[in-house]
């Protein structure tokens, strides 16, 4: 039992019992961030804001949503959209955030790749980040089913059917996942559970691990410079703030991040209030019909690149399925495919820069062709772009192995 004295205020009272002063130091005022970073390092905090908005808007939607095949569609499109005061706002915020969260995740990922923030001690940051990407993908897919429109239903049919590609037990797995011979009420209710409870809990847990994984290796910077964080922090604490290469997370770093958040929120609420249709597929305003397939089935924009890998290898659907599986996990081992010890922005690593540019362009091409119907020349472009995507990860170790260390350090 610690010695408890008469407190001279609320903070002191709490500090004696919960050590709030040390906690604030550890998490905020003495958590050190390099000065040498730009606005691209604000994406993480932006994602936290978006996740919070998804969570809160989700809570309000959950009060009126009914997870039942006969009630779901109207509970969203009639009750929430027309009867609930501001229901339309919660839905638009939820839909637009779901779309934007993937845009920012992709920027966050490619910033990490560009600046080499996934290696030399930062592997766990990258791996937990990828785990979050997979969890967000599962969260997006399970949520997409809930309004029970045509696209909800047929996306669920196609995605659950993918498990049929597993050798021997495939068809049984599909029935087991669905809880029925086809996508039905049992499927809706279990995915509802995943979307509103299990996956959000897992996401929050992995976000905590993702934050913790930053503590030891610290945040990377725009030059890939190795900093002695203890020495630099010491300078800052001694009052040599100009000389020190680091700043505290709070208030210095977050103050600039908050500015970025507000710029983003201005754009976000313009979209949520005046231009929300990009996040809501028109086909999903038809109620689900298990006997009528829409003319074209395609996922939301953020899954198009991997969808194109799935169907790009048109000559063999099993091979396409295997490559689709590979494409979704290959990023996990990126830190181990890059054999170079150099941590530097891509523009200082010529071979890697070319690789990065090709990867970015290829993923944009895959995304465009994932939306187009597979006819004529599209089939071949999709096939070539899918092959390039897989090939990029095969050649990465070869082009990074001979990279000269130093020269830019």
């Amino acid at each position, binding site marked *: 039992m610690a010695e408890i004295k008469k407190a001279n205020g609320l903070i002191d009272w709490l500090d004696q019992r919960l050590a709030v002063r040390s906690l604030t130091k550890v998490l905020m005022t003495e958590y050190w961030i390099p000065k040498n970073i730009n606005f691209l390092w604000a994406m993480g905090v932006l994602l936290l804001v978006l996740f919070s908005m998804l969570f809160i808007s989700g809570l309000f939607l959950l009060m009126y949503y009914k997870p039942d095949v006969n009630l779901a569609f109207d509970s969203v499109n009639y009750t929430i959209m027309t009867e609930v005061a501001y229901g339309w706002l919660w839905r638009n915020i939820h839909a637009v955030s779901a779309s934007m969260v993937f845009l920012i995740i992709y920027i966050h990922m490619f910033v990490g790749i560009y600046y080499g923030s996934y290696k030399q001690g930062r592997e766990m940051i990258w791996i937990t980040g990828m785990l979050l990407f997979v969890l967000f993908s599962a969260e997006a897919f399970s949520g997409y089913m809930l309004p029970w429109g045509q696209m909800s239903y047929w996306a669920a049919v*196609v995605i659950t059917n993918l498990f049929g590609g597993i050798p021997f037990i495939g068809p049984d797995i599909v029935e087991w996942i669905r*809880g029925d011979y086809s996508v039905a009420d049992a499927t809706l209710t*279990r995915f509802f559970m995943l979307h509103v409870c299990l996956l959000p809990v897992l996401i929050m847990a992995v976000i905590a691990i993702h934050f913790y994984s930053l503590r030891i290796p610290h945040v990377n910077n725009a030059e890939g410079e190795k900093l002695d964080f203890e020495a630099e922090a010491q300078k800052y604490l001694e009052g040599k703030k100009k000389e020190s290469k680091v700043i505290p997370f709070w208030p210095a770093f977050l103050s600039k991040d908050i500015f970025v958040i507000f710029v983003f929120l201005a754009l976000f609420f313009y979209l949520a209030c005046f231009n929300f249709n990009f996040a809501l597929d028109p086909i999903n305003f038809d109620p689900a019909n298990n006997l*009528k397939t829409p003319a074209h089935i395609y996922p939301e924009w953020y899954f198009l690149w991997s969808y194109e890998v799935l169907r790009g290898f048109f000559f063999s659907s099993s091979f396409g399925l295997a490559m689709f599986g590979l494409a979704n996990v290959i990023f996990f081992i990126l830190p181990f495919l890059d054999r170079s010890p150099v941590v530097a922005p891509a523009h200082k690593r010529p071979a890697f820069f070319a690789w990065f540019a090709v990867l970015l362009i290829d993923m944009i091409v895959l995304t465009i062709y994932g939306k187009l119907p597979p006819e004529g020349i599209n089939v071949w472009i999709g096939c070539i772009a899918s092959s390039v995507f897989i090939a990029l990860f095969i050649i990465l170790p070869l082009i990074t192995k001979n990279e000269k260390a130093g020269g830019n350090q």
Partner: protein
Amino acid sequence: MNKRRDFIGMALGGGAALGAAASLVAMKRTWDPLPNVVSAGFTTVDISSLQEGEMMTVEWRKKPVYILRMAKNDADAQNFLGKRNFQIGDAIYTIGIQVCTHLGCIPGYDANKKEFLCACHGGRFNSSGINAPGTPPPKPMTIPPFKILEDGKKILLGEAGEEYNQLSDKE
């Protein structure tokens, strides 16, 4: 002393392992289709009004099943007789689950071209439900178990009858 303590540790570990295994079984079983879903798998269809070259689609286990009375000028009617097509009197019928074997969309039937076309990814099947080479579907459409009733007036889906058992392309 240590041996006795080891026993307590092992007993705890063993008990926990058993409990975890039992929990996994329970979780797996909870996700299984319900008994009423499994047992509600029988549908009777009246095919007596079906004209030559005409196709009907019925719902069975929430999936569409096509029944096609094949046209006289359809060469595939004879080609796949006994494999995927069967005879009732002098009419040849073919039957299948109208679900594309590529990714599960529903192909439409074009009576003029005598082929199924799947709008999702361009899969094609001939009138007997066999996938066209070079299109995405990896295998022919599945033939559901069926039984012919009342001298060929009706078909019962869900139960394997004699004609079904004689077909050679049941997977």
